[in-house]
């Protein structure tokens, strides 16, 4: 069984979210990884079909998920249901929980996890070359990483969702930075899980961490 991992890398938010997934999730998912300029609609829709799990990050709004340079990779009413049918979906993006998430369930996705509002967090812009080492961003993105790893361990969508929520709560309790704490609570309050809470995928092999960090593709226009 294959997996789909879509990781745009063209601006500060996508470099941060994709950077963490590249560091902690990509080694467990394959063979299909759409990184940077490869994260396009055609590739996403064609290569998602044989996957049992789709993990995607990128800018979004209620009915659109985008990839590289805001290219639409999934839009309500404009994709083959085979792209999502029978799959567990995790979208780290803004607002797709309002329309796109329900639409994927209507088109046969087993479960969808995402957010009904903007996904917001604080990054250290000085860490843009090695975003996975950003301690500000880790407070928000590592709960997402832990949740996806739970899915890859074969846990249910509900268990994975709960792990992410507990991560936000734990990190909010630990941080002394009020802005970061508010972002964590905001993301937690707006997280959405739809579909079958018992949905799960075939467990992937565990990877012994730490792995060497991945190379980051440096965009020419950043």
């Amino acid at each position: 069984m294959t997996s789909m991992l879509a990781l745009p890398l063209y601006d500060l938010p996508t470099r941060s979210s994709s950077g963490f997934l590249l560091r902690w999730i990509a080694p467990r998912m394959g063979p299909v990884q759409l990184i940077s300029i490869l994260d396009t609609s055609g590739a996403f829709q064609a290569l998602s079909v044989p996957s049992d799990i789709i993990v995607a990050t990128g800018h979004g709004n209620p009915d659109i998920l985008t990839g590289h340079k805001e290219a639409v990779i999934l839009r309500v009413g404009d994709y083959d249901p085979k792209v999502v049918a029978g799959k567990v979906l995790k979208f780290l993006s803004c607002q797709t929980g309002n329309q796109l998430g329900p639409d994927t369930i209507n088109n046969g996705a087993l479960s969808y996890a995402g957010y009904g509002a903007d996904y917001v967090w604080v990054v250290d812009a000085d860490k843009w070359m090695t975003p996975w080492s950003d301690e500000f961003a880790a407070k928000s993105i590592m709960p997402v990483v832990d949740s996806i790893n739970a899915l890859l361990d074969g846990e249910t969508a509900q268990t994975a969702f709960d792990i992410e929520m507990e991560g936000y709560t734990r990190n909010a309790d630990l941080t002394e930075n009020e802005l970061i704490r508010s972002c964590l609570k905001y993301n937690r309050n707006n997280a959405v899980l739809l579909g079958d809470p018992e949905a799960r995928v075939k467990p992937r092999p565990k990877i012994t961490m730490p792995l060497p960090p991945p190379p980051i593709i440096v965009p020419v226009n950043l």
Partner: protein
Amino acid sequence: MAQQEWEILKETLRQPSSPHGREAAAKAFSQYERTLPAGSKPTLVSLGLGQGYPNAVPVDQISEELKKNPKFFELMHEIVESD
């Protein structure tokens, strides 16, 4: 970290998004920002698309964005109210 400054910011963000209200929020954020530790480049980011505010706002520029952008004021209101 700076509970008093944070509470003042919260209160200003509860006011309507008028030019005067945004100016007050911007001033309150500046005062809060002075309480944050220096030494890095913290930036508030989001994965929104076409929301009417930048996807990345350095924390030291949040007060400016609050002053001029009603949609960003609304986003900050929602974020801060979550606390």
